[in-house]
């Protein structure tokens, strides 16, 4: 596996943000921007820490599956966000760790620890439109999960439902002209304010990718989590499936950099 394939603000940001984003509270009738704000504002990403162990499976256009498993730690403070990803499987990458420190301002520090080398290695962020680690996520998709309100204007469409759940439907238009998408359509679970489905349209207005959340389960804290997150590339006929194995808000190392080097 080439570790440079899109290791920008990398995969753990996606998993952590997706996971945290899926654990929000309930609300009443709201406008499009208010729904989007609620989705973002209640996310514990801004104030909390956590750990998620996930199973990631990429499926190529021939239907061949490539599974991997990783442990992801995240902590946010006034200085910024720290993330640590450790591969658990498969064997050829097990023990590899990736540390990302994203300050409030400025570029992130990204360090890769390869057990075979026995030391860390600084790496550069990649272009935001590039994919990472052969998944169906791009850098822009990863980073935008935690900042929809900053990157998009929201318009509420007619309510609908997705897999039996009543959903608000939002049409999100990128604020920046150089976005990868012409627009995004998001289905938000009305009762729990969780994204159920997100459709990404390319610049030609053609459906490009779909993010599907499923296997919702209630946490001990009473919030809901999507235990399966699926990104389907409709045009390439590939997909990436993320299954949450375990999550914790407390089982986190005191110092991520130390943990990277252990």
């Amino acid at each position: 596996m080439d570790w440079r394939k899109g290791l920008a603000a990398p995969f753990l940001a996606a998993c952590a943000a997706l996971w945290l984003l899926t654990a929000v509270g309930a609300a009443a009738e709201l406008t499009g921007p208010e729904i989007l704000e609620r989705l973002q504002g209640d996310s514990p990403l801004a104030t909390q820490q956590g750990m998620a162990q996930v199973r990631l499976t990429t499926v190529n256009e021939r239907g061949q599956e490539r599974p991997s498993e990783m442990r992801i730690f995240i902590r946010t403070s006034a200085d910024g966000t720290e993330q640590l990803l450790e591969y658990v499987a498969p064997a050829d990458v097990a023990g590899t760790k990736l540390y990302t420190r994203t300050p409030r301002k400025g570029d992130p520090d990204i360090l890769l620890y390869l057990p075979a080398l026995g030391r860390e290695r600084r790496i550069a962020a990649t272009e935001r439109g590039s994919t990472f680690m052969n998944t169906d996520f791009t850098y822009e998709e990863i980073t935008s999960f935690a900042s929809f309100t900053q990157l998009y204007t929201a318009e509420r469409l007619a309510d609908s439902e997705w897999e039996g759940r009543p959903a608000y439907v939002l049409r999100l238009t990128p604020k920046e002209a150089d976005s990868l998408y012409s627009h995004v359509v998001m289905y938000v679970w009305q009762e729990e304010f969780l994204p159920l489905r997100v459709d990404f349209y390319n610049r030609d207005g053609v459906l490009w990718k779909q993010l599907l959340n499923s296997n919702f389960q209630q946490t001990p804290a009473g919030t809901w989590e999507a235990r399966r997150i699926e990104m389907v590339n409709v045009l390439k006929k590939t997909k990436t499936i993320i299954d949450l194995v375990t999550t914790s808000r407390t089982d986190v190392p005191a110092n991520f950099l130390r943990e990277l080097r252990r």
Partner: protein
Amino acid sequence: MGPRHTPERSPHPALALVLGLLLALGLAGVARAQDEVTIRGQVGQTLGFFLTEGSRLNGDEITWGPGQVSLNRTHYQLQFERRFGWEAAGHISLKGYWDAGVAGLEALKGVANGDSSTLLELDQAYVDLYSDLTDFRIGRQRIAWGTADGFNPTSYFSPLTLDLTRGLEGLVQPVTAIRTSTYFNVGTLSVVIVPAFEPSEWERVLQDETGLSVTAENVKDYENPGEIGLQFDTFYRGTSLYLSYFNGYEDQPVVWEGEANLHGAWRREQKVGLAAATAWRGFTLWGEGTYTFPGRVEGLDEQRAGQIWGPTKPYPTAVLGVDYLFPRGIRAELQYIYNGRGSLLKIFNESDVPAGQYLMGLASIPLTDDQTLELLALDSLRDDSRVLVPTYRYQLTPTTQASLSLILVDGGPASEVGQKHLSDLDQLTLAVTVRF
């Protein structure tokens, strides 16, 4: 090109045994649910074939021709790890290899692939203890410092050599040491103490590179066997900085021609080093350098420069590198290497040899999800000779990889990489590795 330039350091058996027992006892304890023993390993088979005719004088004259098997090796590794929450950890790993009876290989014993089979040996065995501020690692371990790929002047506890046949990951040899890493707000201070210096196998290399041999009684032994290294590292505006110091022994003794015999002496050296790495517009940039002060040896100053194998004056060593990831996952890397000690491909350089200067390139091109083409190239700027190692990799399953490599030497017999012990060792290797 054979693996002759990476001296193997033998484990310190008593300490390794004690640590192994301690670790075993630890592993037998009651584990918390999240702290299970992790077992990993790999097994592989490598077949090598000569591509050209060649010969050696190793007692008798040995000859080989294109297509003759040069290597048929089974290699394996097994490691056990266990975490004890956030407070401690243990690691033990074993490795070994077995060379099948290949005429070419046996004939080259002591020259190219020559080591006998090592069915099982200790690789690493250490315990980790984590306190509030400091992490301790005690036991046989790999200590890799520096920021460059493959050749790290500031990685003081590993032989400073480059062996392309082992890849960039196989160069760091384990040592028995105590390592502490203390984390302050401004950075991290690491201290490494090696209680007993472990000399490498150097006699065979001396014979191979210079044609000379020295008897053990003519080599002055070392007195205080301890070595120490310090490193302070910090982040500054998106840049990693590492300052380091080393006081220990050279990887091989300095050798000189006496009046009647060849003499040698183990001597201390001191090194100061600086390494840095940063990222800029998608590029990763790194550099590291050391300045080495060889210790003084009685009687050495009177020798003429051409009769001493080893540096007699302080010298610098440096690496500057850059890499970039292009669209479609194509990665390219370039490093400039300056070795004030002489040739990077030799252990025993004469004291007046000019500094070695090199360009090392690495490219990785994904062909499909499962297939990758790589090219590793080392070009000697001193005489425009080079080594090329193209490799094709095929990921058969998530745990099984096959590869096909060529090792091609391009340079005349008088050139640095085309010298006699390398120039006719063009090879093709086939390898399959299974990891679990």
